[in-house]
Each structure stands twice: as structure tokens, then as C-alpha cells.
């Protein structure tokens, strides 16, 4: 159990076990409700924590496996910053992963940010081994274990049934393209200045007429304003673009996510992540 501090959410979400009295005396598993929590009350404008989530895992061609982590911000209006360290870490170990430190408010149409980063583990990573993401916010220390349970296996980068396919993303017109949640990283650092627009682009290939694109601040010292947070576009109309303004100097990572349709998120297949490193000077 990952909740380590007494908190409102603890009592809000956990319905205590009493029993539903079963007059027949059957051996049914018994649950009784001393509190009833309705769906709408889970979400509030502000003051609540971010919940770390484990979406699942997929196998890579070399035998290694990648674990996908995501988050659910319980605030509909408040974004949170959780610096790396004691409040935001992976098991305390040194995994090669880029953890987010910025957590956007709850998206209005889909309720969590799917697979924002991955952790790749060796081929011999055991079923009983875990990589745990620890995240403390709003005075609540929450965590989630990632492991390679068969029930949590995910298609990558395409699904056999629905035919979903992760878009191919290139960060330059003639660059190498990547599909999937492990993502593509900008090869060079993009420079800019505080308050001045920085243009970011992605060349996306996909057989669909329309794809979905979303932009977000992944990490960095100041507020980032985007001229468009999400949109749909034809992959044949040219690169996906966004204009970002950074409020403070320092190094940022901007995250792009693209998927063939927003509805495909809830089938857990398949989107592509892209990460841009941006240095902002005074």
C-alpha cells in the first residue's frame, strides 16, 4: 500500500470494509459500505495530489522490457511541480529514465496522462522484481510498482485487433523516425530566451487522415505557455508545430504525444512520445 500519510484522500477513496449482511449465510465475499464516494467527488479544482500510475509493459526486440508510467492529477485546475529527489524518484535507484517534474491539471476529455515516460529493464528482469515510482504531493506520499506481470502486457507499437499504429515521429524533416512510447529525443538542444516564442516541430507519418497531437511541459524551472495544447491534424499537411514561451531561464524538456485517435488511449495502444530539450537564457 502506497499511502503513507494520513490525508483527506485516504478517507475519501478508501471505503472501509464492514460487510453486506448476507442473510443466507453463504460464503460470498462480503463488502459493506460505510461511506459511499461518488465519482464526481474524486476530482477537485486544487489542493489534491498527483497519483502515479503504471500503464503496463512491452517487450523490445533485444529482449529487454519497457515499463510505462503515467499520472492522474486529481486537480482539474491546478498544475503541480514536484522536483526530482525525495518526492519524485524511482526506487531510489539509478534507472535511465526521464521523470516528469511538471504535472498538468486533469485533462477534460481523458482522465490521465498516458505513459509519459518509460523505464527499460534487462531481459532477465524477474516477474517478482519491481521498479517503483514514488511521488509526494499535497502532503501525500504515493507510489506505484511497475513490473512485468502478464496481465499488464501492452501492444507496441501496433495492435492486432483494432489496427492502431503508433505514429512515426521525426524531429527534423530528414531525421530518423521513431514509433512508440519509449519515444524520440531531440538530438540537439534548442535555445531560446525568457518570454520569447520558441517554435517546436515534429514530422509525423501515419496512414490515418487525422491524428491527435498534444504538447506539455515535462520538466523545467518556469511556467511554459503553449499556443495550442492539443489538436488534431492531417499527417500530410506538414509538421506538427507549437509555439512555446518560457517564463524563467534554465533547462526544460517539452513532451509531445501523438496517437491515431484520442479514443485509442483507453485501449492502451499505441502512442509515440517525443522529448525536446530546450535551454532558455535570460
Amino acid at each position, binding site marked *: *500500500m*502506497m*499511502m503513507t500519510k494520513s490525508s483527506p484522500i485516504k478517507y475519501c*477513496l*478508501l*471505503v472501509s*470494509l464492514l460487510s*453486506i*449482511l*448476507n*442473510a*443466507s449465510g*453463504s*460464503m*460470498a*465475499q462480503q*463488502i459493506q*459500505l460505510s*461511506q*459511499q*464516494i*461518488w*465519482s*464526481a467527488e*474524486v*476530482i477537485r479544482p486544487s489542493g489534491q495530489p498527483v*497519483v*502515479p*500510475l*503504471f500503464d*503496463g509493459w512491452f517487450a523490445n526486440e533485444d529482449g529487454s522490457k519497457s515499463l510505462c508510467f503515467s499520472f*492522474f492529477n*486529481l486537480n482539474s485546475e491546478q498544475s503541480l511541480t514536484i522536483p526530482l529527489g525525495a518526492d519524485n524518484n524511482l526506487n531510489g535507484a539509478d534507472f535511465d529514465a526521464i521523470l516528469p517534474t511538471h504535472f498538468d491539471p486533469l485533462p*477534460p*476529455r*481523458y*482522465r*490521465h496522462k498516458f505513459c509519459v515516460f518509460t523505464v527499460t529493464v534487462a531481459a532477465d528482469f524477474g516477474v517478482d522484481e519491481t521498479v517503483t515510482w514514488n511521488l509526494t504531493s499535497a502532503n501525500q506520499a*504515493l507510489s*506505484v*510498482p511497475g*513490473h512485468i*506481470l*502478464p*496481465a*499488464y*502486457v*501492452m*501492444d507496441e507499437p501496433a*495492435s*492486432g*485487433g*483494432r489496427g492502431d499504429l503508433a505514429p512515426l515521429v521525426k524531429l527534423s524533416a530528414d531525421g530518423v523516425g521513431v514509433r512508440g512510447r519509449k519515444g524520440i529525443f531531440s538530438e540537439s538542444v534548442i535555445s531560446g530566451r525568457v518570454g520569447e516564442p520558441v517554435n517546436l516541430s515534429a514530422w509525423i507519418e501515419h496512414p490515418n487522415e487525422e491524428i491527435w497531437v498534444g504538447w506539455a511541459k515535462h520538466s523545467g524551472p518556469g511556467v511554459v505557455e503553449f499556443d495550442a495544447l492539443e489538436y488534431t491534424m492531417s499527417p500530410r499537411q506538414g509538421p506538427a508545430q507549437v509555439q512555446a514561451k518560457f517564463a524563467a531561464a534554465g533547462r526544460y524538456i517539452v513532451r509531445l504525444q501523438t496517437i491515431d485517435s484520442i479514443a485509442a488511449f*483507453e*485501449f*492502451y*495502444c499505441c502512442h509515440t512520445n517525443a522529448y525536446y530539450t530546450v535551454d532558455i537564457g535570460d
Partner: protein
Amino acid sequence: MNSHLHTHRGSILELAIFIVLTSLAGTVLAQGSEIITPSFSMDVAPILQQKCQTCHNPDGIGPMPLLTYAQVKPFSALIKDRTGKRMMPPWHNDPTTGIQQFKNDASLSEAQIATLAAWADAGAPEGNPADLPTPIQFPSGGAWQLADQLGPPDLIIKSTPYDVIANGQDQWWTPDVPFTGLNQSRWLRAAEFKPSYPLGKKVVHHGHAVLQPTGGGRPVALARYGVGKSWEIYPEGTGMLVPADGHIAWNLHYFPVGTEGDNDVVEVGLWFYSEGQQPELVTNGESMFRVDGLNGMARGQDILIPPHGYQVLEGTHVLQSPAIIHSFRPHLHMRGKVMTMTAIFPDGRKEVLSQVNKYNHNWQISYIYADEVKPLLPTGTVLQFTSVFDNTANNPINPDPNQWVVFGRRGVDEMSHAWVGITDINEEQYAEAVAERRAFQETLTLE
């Protein structure tokens, strides 16, 4: 054998065992009476035939046949355990709350459970094979289940082939297939959803075949399937209008179970009223009532179940016209445990119609109300649905209680809605139905 005597003897034995097991001293039957040990032939086989063999036959979906003594004896202890815990037969309705008369009640009585337990405890004796009930011929796994009642389907529609994978993530096969075979609109009387046999019956978890009429119009859900619910016969005089032209939007959820196969095809059999015959009542069939909806959003995905914890969701729906409810089929996933359907009447009265309190994701049972107890609901009734999710280790099919669980389509994610067989009626029809119900109840009282 004389089936009447058999039933009578069986009933006496079941009652006797029940009394013994439920009395404080446990000696009621013993005083002046011979204690009767149940035998397979006389006492157990009839129960299995009535409640188990539909699935547990060589072509059924049960993992082993339970037809003969040789087949059953090795499982006597398991049968005692599973039936005692009411894990088998699969019937997850709360017997203490709400309506209890169903057309398809698969549950065992306390007396039947006691008989099976006493038989197992006595060493599973065979008894005299001459006492066995006449064997039932079950339809093959590939046959239409409704054929015995209705004959062959009037029309069969098919999905396009899908190559089933052995392992991996849940798969959704959603082909769009032209609807052909009718030259005019027809009134649907019954439908059966038939996965292939044997592979499809193992791997198709649930599915829908929805007719999208040419030129628009309201989609017509011809058939909906879940493991444990494969057909629907509309009540006498009730039907659904099926346009002649359109295309079928298939939505098939395949659940990998370690077996693969190419070109799997799902079929739906349709039975129509005679040409020119129009049923009095028009039904929508099974309609979805969301419990996870929120403020009109397509997906109110505010499911968030903590590790080792629970969550409760509620959804409410106001009926815009009177309605008859024919059936109730909760749909949750692996952490789903309870769903309650409650009617809040316009005068403020509140009545639990049904509560499934041992929900199991591996079964999608439709609880079909007996005609005389179908809820008749006036305009303005609020249907309130309450779902409980159990993400603890006590949930036997929980894949990992350490996870936070959110909304999603996979079995390891959660969702919550009810499929309710419902027919909207007008005020006049409602008044008639209420009068008929009252007359029936008065008849019962007089009798």
C-alpha cells in the same frame, strides 16, 4: 425410472439434509428416522443435469464434463467446495435483496448444496445406476442454442475473420460489414450471438453487433454477448424493428488465453416475427446505463481505485417515459464486485430492483426477470446504479492489488455500466400493464 417419484424422493432427502445441517442440534432427522446417504444416481445426477451440465458437457464451455459417475466422482470434493462457496454454478445475484424470480436462475438451493456436500462427505457413492435420470442431449457447442425452441435462424450475419493471438494484450476486432439478407424491414423476435466453437467460445469475452442504418437513424443493437449471456428472446408481443439496409458495426473483445487460431468468425442468428406481423411493444433491447459517466462526457473516467482499497461509483438516469425492465446485466472488469440497480419512484419511494454482489469479470450474466415480477416503472423514475470495486487481495481475480486502477478497456482497467433490457411504453400501455399486474397479484392472493 419414474421421474415424479425421483423428484419426490430427492426433495425429501434434500429437505432432510437441509434440516439436519441447519438445526442447532443436528439430530432432528436422526430421531426415529433413517439417515439417508445421498447417492450419485438418485440425488446428485439430477442436480447436475438441472444446473451444471449445460456447460459441463463434452461440447460445453465447462473445463470438464460432469455427465457420468466416472466423470464426476474425482471432482466430488471440488464440487462440494465450489458449490458451498456459491462459486458454481455462476450466479452472482444477491439472494437477500431485490427481485428473486428469474427465467434463467442457475443458482442452487441451500438444500441442493447440502445434498452435494453430504454426498461428497459420504465418499461420493454411486448408488444404483437404475436410478439415474434420463440423459439429456445437449446441443453441440457449435449449434444454435435457440434452435430447439425457435428452429434455425431466419438470417445469419457474420463478422470478418480475425486471427486470434495466443498471448498478449486484450484485442478488439471492430470490422464493418454490409448488412444483407432482408428486402424489407422486419421485427426482430430473438437473437443469438455465437462465437466459433471451440476456439471462439474460449477467447471471445464479449461483443456487440450493431446495425447502422443506411442514411442515418438510430443504431439497432441486434445482439450483445458476454460469457454467460449469448441470446435474447424478447417477451411475447415485443420486438425491435430492423431496417433492411445498413452495415453491421462489430465490436468483439478477444481475451488471449494461450490458444491461437486463424480466421475466427463470430455469427449472429436472427429470428423475426412473421412478415406483416407487428408486435405491440417496441423494445430497444439491452440499453447501456452508465455508472462511470460524468456530466455528459463520453467517458467520465473518474475511476481511481487505490491499492488495496475500494471505490464506489454511482450513476443516475431519469426515465422519460414509462418502461418495463426485462433484464439486468452489470458490466465491470476484474476489480468489479457489486452493482446495484435501484428505482427511485416519483413519489420518493426507493426500491432495490437487483443487486449483484459477487460479480466476476469472467462471467457476464444477464439476470432475466420472470414475467410476473418485471419492474414496471412510471415516467420520472430515477434508475440509480451503484458499483463497488474491490482492489484488495481478497478479490480472487485481482491481478495485482498494489496497482492504482483507472478507467480503460482492458480487463486490468475498470469501467462500469449496466446493460438493461428495457422497453419504453406509453402511459396507456403502462396503465394496462399495472392493471394486469394487480389482477395477477390478486389472483395469487385468492389462490
